[in-house]
């Protein structure tokens, strides 16, 4: 875990309200990063916004890493305005990511919206390890869909839109439930409602399903206890025990 002033290499608007930021972060990449881990980014230098913003590690290439984010409020608006050459104060890598069990060769990745961010990193690593990767990309509508050119090469991708504007019409959780029996492991990242729908649509609790949770965070290191969730294994911190948990352990 490092605190580092990372230099912005590029900032590209890749879709409506979505940005891809590449940064040079030798300290953070040098501490060893795993898919599903995240960074805490200071947005600007004033006290408004006050807290750092958590962003998943989207990709790592040598000493460079990328994040992908949606512009929602104060923090992400500031990040969206960053230019090449600017610096961003970051903490990372933080938390515990996805863990591919030995012998799991056939992975199903389920992305709700920009939940695709950490799953891209996971797909990169899994493909390099010789796994087969299927990525379900769920989005409300085609214009909010993560661009094809940025998806991991070699993954088989299926798009699901709520309005039917591209790919299968419906919810990505339904498709996941339909397909999961063909896979050794399922890794998902999206809103809590997506996980709830996965549980409701019968993704069996006994199977290896890992999901990345979101709560408001302040410290990112397990110190403030602001992100505590009740699980079947007791109280857990999303920021340091997670953000990735076994779906079977969560009370949803």
């Amino acid at each position, binding site marked *: 875990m490092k605190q580092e002033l990372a230099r912005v290499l590029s900032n590209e608007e890749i879709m409506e309200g979505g940005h891809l930021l590449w940064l040079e972060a030798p300290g953070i990449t040098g501490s060893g990063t795993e898919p599903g881990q995240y960074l805490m980014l200071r947005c600007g230098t004033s006290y408004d916004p*006050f*807290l750092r913003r958590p962003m998943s590690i989207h990709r790592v290439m040598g000493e460079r890493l990328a994040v992908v984010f949606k512009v929602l409020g104060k923090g992400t608006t500031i990040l969206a305005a960053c230019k090449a050459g600017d610096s961003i104060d970051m*903490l990372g890598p933080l938390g515990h990511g996805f863990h591919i069990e030995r012998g799991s060769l056939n992975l199903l990745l389920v992305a709700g919206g920009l939940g695709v961010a950490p799953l891209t990193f996971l797909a990169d690593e899994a493909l390099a390890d010789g796994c087969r990767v299927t990525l379900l990309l769920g989005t409300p509508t085609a214009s909010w869909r993560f661009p094809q050119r940025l998806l991991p090469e070699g993954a088989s991708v299926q798009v699901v839109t709520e309005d039917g504007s591209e790919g299968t019409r419906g919810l990505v959780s339904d498709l996941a439930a339909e397909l999961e029996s063909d896979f050794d492991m399922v890794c998902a990242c999206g809103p809590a409602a997506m996980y709830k729908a996965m549980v409701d649509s019968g993704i069996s609790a006994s199977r290896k399903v890992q999901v990345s949770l979101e709560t408001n965070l*302040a410290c990112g290191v397990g110190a*403030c*206890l602001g992100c*505590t969730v009740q699980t079947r294994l007791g109280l857990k911190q999303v920021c340091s025990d997670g953000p990735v948990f076994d779906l079977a352990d969560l009370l949803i």
Partner: protein
Amino acid sequence: MDLTTELVSGTRGLKLKNPVMNASGTFGYGTEYSSLIDIQELGAVVTKGTTIESRAGNPQPRLKETPAGMLNSIGLQNIGVEAVIAQKAPLWATWRVPVIVNIAGSQVEDYAVLASRLSVVDGVSGLEVNISCPNVKAGGVAFGASPRMAAEVTRGVVSSTTLPVIVKLSPNVSDIVEIAVAVREAGAHVLCLVNTLRGTAIDINSRRPFLGNGMGGLSGPAIRPVALAMVYQAAKMVDIPIIGCGGIATAADALEFIMAGASAVQVGAAQFVDPSSLLRIAEGIDEFMEREGVKYLSELVGVAL
């Protein structure tokens, strides 16, 4: 420059190498930030609030950002005093930096029980008594809201331990000086001012309070002038050392508290924003003293009074 700060003298005193420590509840048990900063360089480490039994805390959401600050409603989630002693204290005993355990109760007797239990534990160098908690027997009014209850808690703790006792006051009172005087009379060795200011936020979309618990405590730079005024008022009326806390983020902020009468400072929310701030503040105070030709920090304490 000499930044040593003797809060309590004697063999079982409390002598800090510099006046900067973390605020309780923002630093876990000291180890959480240890890969980011050298915690041995702090004046002291203050633990998360500790109760007799473990506590699960409040429902989510527990955090809400506000302009230049944040609301929290953690609800004193903690592992309980026996787990702290078994799992955390053995490591503290190997540290150079003194560890102060923050204690909290829901009835007067709890504080004395915690104090006597911790009194004999290796690795514990002091107690900080959080009196902002609700007194269950008094219908949930905070201990810190009445001079009588605050004094009662203080007496219970002081008579149950030989450790230095810091009493941490709540700012949610009509007259902080009255409480400070009562706690001092009851035997507190040091005061800490202040805990969080009561606050809340409403989610206009759901039309409900944003925090799971309805209300929370405000901290961060937003509360600094309020906390500073309380230190300034209390320092005029009590003769024991004061630790200033509330919105401190820079060395200049810390120096304001010191000049207003604080002998040491604590940093809470600001170190979420910048974990390096604790050590930067100590360095900045040192640079200021060098520049101003001040040899001992004590020369600056209360100069603005």
